[in-house]
């Protein structure tokens, strides 16, 4: 099943994984995850006293032979794991070589594909909402809106191709509001599950309230921060007036190679604050540059952190 986002070889290797969820699935839909609900499966869970109207097929006859009382055998119900992928498609993600947006989409596609292979429901929440660019063809916008709608709920391995196509139809643009998107996603979710946030986290408003809202709703969270090589080690030197692509704010700075170390320290500080925030809240945190190999992240880092296994 080849895709423009992921190679066939990578897809084949991803099929071997399954998302690991520390919590029991709370979804109401049937799936392959253990849940607290009782239902039909092969996993024995408990006994209860027979009441009138129970299905005789679940009576434990050997126990009746010993105790001469009717007990019903209960089995664990297997439910699906809702996986919500919060994908930052703001203007700032369109920078970098290779583009951070392309990298983030590939990560989202890989996560989604692993979830779909595990019969889990995948929701991709691309934020901010699609903006009406006057230069843009209305059919492209309509296609994107349709793709965004379709990505809200995807299930089954069959839908993988459609899932990839919809992801490929997304465009980066507009100003991100990470907190708002996460808070809204937390509220909209009927059941908590696995939440994966893929963003550069370069939001002036910060990220703490959004992540806290997801935790409060009971999500298990994985955070993947994608930065471009230019953001890690800038190549513009001299007397500069920098314009923010999202807010249009300007910042004057005189920058030379001898200040590179100080700048990189600033970036490290920023990443470290986010990492610390995640660590104290039990969130898996990954920081990647958009020029690292996708396999490195997917097959080694995520596996090592037991995001999947």
């Amino acid at each position, binding site marked *: 099943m080849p895709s423009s986002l992921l190679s066939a070889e990578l897809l084949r290797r991803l099929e071997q994984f399954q998302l690991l969820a520390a919590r029991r699935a709370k979804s109401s839909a049937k799936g392959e995850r253990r849940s607290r609900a009782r239902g039909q499966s092969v996993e024995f869970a408990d006994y209860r006293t027979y009441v009138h109207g129970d299905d005789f097929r679940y009576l434990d006859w050997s126990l009746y032979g010993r105790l001469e009382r009717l007990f019903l055998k209960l089995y664990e119900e297997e439910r699906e794991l809702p996986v919500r992928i919060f994908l930052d498609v703001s203007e700032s993600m369109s920078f970098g070589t290779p583009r951070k947006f392309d990298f983030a989409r590939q990560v989202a596609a890989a996560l989604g594909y692993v979830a779909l292979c595990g019969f889990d429901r995948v929701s991709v929440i691309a934020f901010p909402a699609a903006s009406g660019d006057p230069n843009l063809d209305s059919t492209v916008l309509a296609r994107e809106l349709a793709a965004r709608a379709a990505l809200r709920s995807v299930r089954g391995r069959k839908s993988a191709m459609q899932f990839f196509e919809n992801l490929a139809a997304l465009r980066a643009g507009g100003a991100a509001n990470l907190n708002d998107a996460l808070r809204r996603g937390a509220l909209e979710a009927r059941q908590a599950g696995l939440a994966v946030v893929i963003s550069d986290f370069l939001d002036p408003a910060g990220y703490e309230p959004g992540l806290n809202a997801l935790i409060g709703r009971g999500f298990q969270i994985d955070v993947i921060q994608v930065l471009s090589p230019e*953001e890690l080690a800038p190549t513009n030197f001299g007397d500069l007036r920098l314009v923010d692509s999202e807010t249009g704010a300007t910042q004057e700075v005189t920058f030379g190679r001898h200040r590179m170390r100080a700048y990189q320290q600033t970036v490290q500080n920023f990443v470290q604050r986010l990492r610390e925030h995640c660590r104290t809240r039990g969130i898996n945190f990954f920081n990647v540059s958009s020029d690292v190999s996708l396999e490195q992240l997917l097959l080694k880092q995520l596996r090592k952190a037991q995001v999947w296994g």
Partner: protein
Amino acid sequence: MNFLAPAAFAFAAAIPVVVVFYLLKRKRVVRLVSSTLLWQQFLAETQASSPFQKLRKNWLLILQIILLLLAVLALARPYFAARTLPAQLRVVILDTSASMQATDETPSRFEKARAEALKWVDGLANNDQMVVLVAGANTEVKQSATSEKAALRRALQACACSDGPTRLVAALRMAESLVRDQRGAEIHLFSDGAVPDLSEFDNKALPLIFHRVGKDSNNVGITALDVRANPEDAHQRAIYASVANFSSNNVQTELELHLDGRLVETRPLNIPAGETSPQVFLASQANDAVFTLRLTVKDDLAADNEASIVSLLPKPVKTLLVTKGNRLLEKALRAASNVQLAVASDMTDPATDFDFVVLDGISPSVWPKGNVLAIHVVNTNWTPEFTQIDGPPIVDWRAAHPLLRYAGFDNVQIAESFGAKCPSWAVSLVDSPQAPLILAGDLGRQRIIWIGFDVLESNWPLRVSFPIFVANAVEWLNPANAKGGQLLVKAGEAFRMGLGRAEKEAQVTLPDGQVKKLPIDSTANELVFGETYKQGIYHLRMGTNETVFCVDLLDAVESNIKPRDELRLGDYTRIAATTRQRTNMELWRSIAGAGLLVLLFEWWYYHRRTA
């Protein structure tokens, strides 16, 4: 440390201007970035909030203020005054002789001496005065006493080196008169010490400071040059030259002989260190021509590697013999080479058509104007007192004189003779105890040989020395020989030429092609041209006549360019070369240099910051 221009500290007011420049906004390049969030945090972490702190941390500003302070300090011209005693008058004598052209110093000794003299001008304190003298072939006052440094610098810059010898005596004499009775005055001589005898200044306590220039003595030069008829073949010319090697190594070179610019002969030379090699060339010439000798060696002094001489074709010597009859004398005269003899018994005109006149015992009614060989005649214009001497014995004769070359007076007896007191214009050639018997000399422009006795009243005509003496006399009295001598002048000496007809103007073309015009006074009977500073061939044009004369160095003292460690003033006084440097060592050059370094560092720092 003092300051020559403390007013320059007013320029420190420019420091706020530099600060103002830092208040101006820079022109920045606009760049679109994903987010300015990281940059804001970067600036917040690296910049402090207080503006004072900001200014203090700006290295560029600090560098510029250092640069400005250095510039102000340089403009204030600080100096250390403690190194020498202040002198009220300094007389600078700059040697401009040929040896100062030597290139053992870079670019030349003269330029180094001038630079050294300029340093002394820089170090002149405000009230001190300086005089600039130039000592070449002539002494020239380039700048009279002044404390104005610009004028002194201009005077030194206007000095030029000549190809002539050093006439230091005149310069020192002038400097001595300038410093006489001046307390603390000093004479600074900038020279290589290749100067002639200075014994005149022995024991004069001259306040002379000798600044020596020069390092090596690598020079080979032509020190003598003459041209004559070949004694063995009258149709050929013999060119006599001396080539001296003053360096400390053997020198192999080639000596070229050119005739009117055409190469005639090349001769390889190998001259040991310190030796002189005499050379004789034989060449034929059809007309009057210029012989040039040229050394191909590359040495430190080029001025003495070439010398030229005008060679005039020998012409018959027109001689008038006024005699009552003297066959021996007549025969001796005819035997001399190239003589066209006329014999007369008396003279009624000054005999201007003849090259010289021989008066044999006859006092003419009209005395000749040209050169004279006077035998046994009395002329009180030449010497006022004559005495009669009987049988004078000959006790001495001047064998070194050209007239007595190969002519000795052994066994010569004289019956009687006039005796004359030796006048100032003449030298005595043959002496008796009572008085000189033969005199020779130049009286004005007239050459005279006076023989006091009648040769027929002696046995001299029977001796071999008599015809030799007559032949020498013909040579000595021949005005063409004297003229030939006039056409070779040493650099720096005046060229003189008698004027035959009244001319209004003469033109002299110098070796470098420059043309000098000389107005001639109608009453003048001699032309004098003094601008013979450069060696080479000069062309003098007067009306339709053109005369060629040569200017050469031909001075062994100048060619010996070995720098002397001391100057000898006579037997007792020696002036050692000084090691003293200029006074008032100014620091502004060093400070300006430091400023330049700071400027370069700032440039580099700025580009490192923004590149």
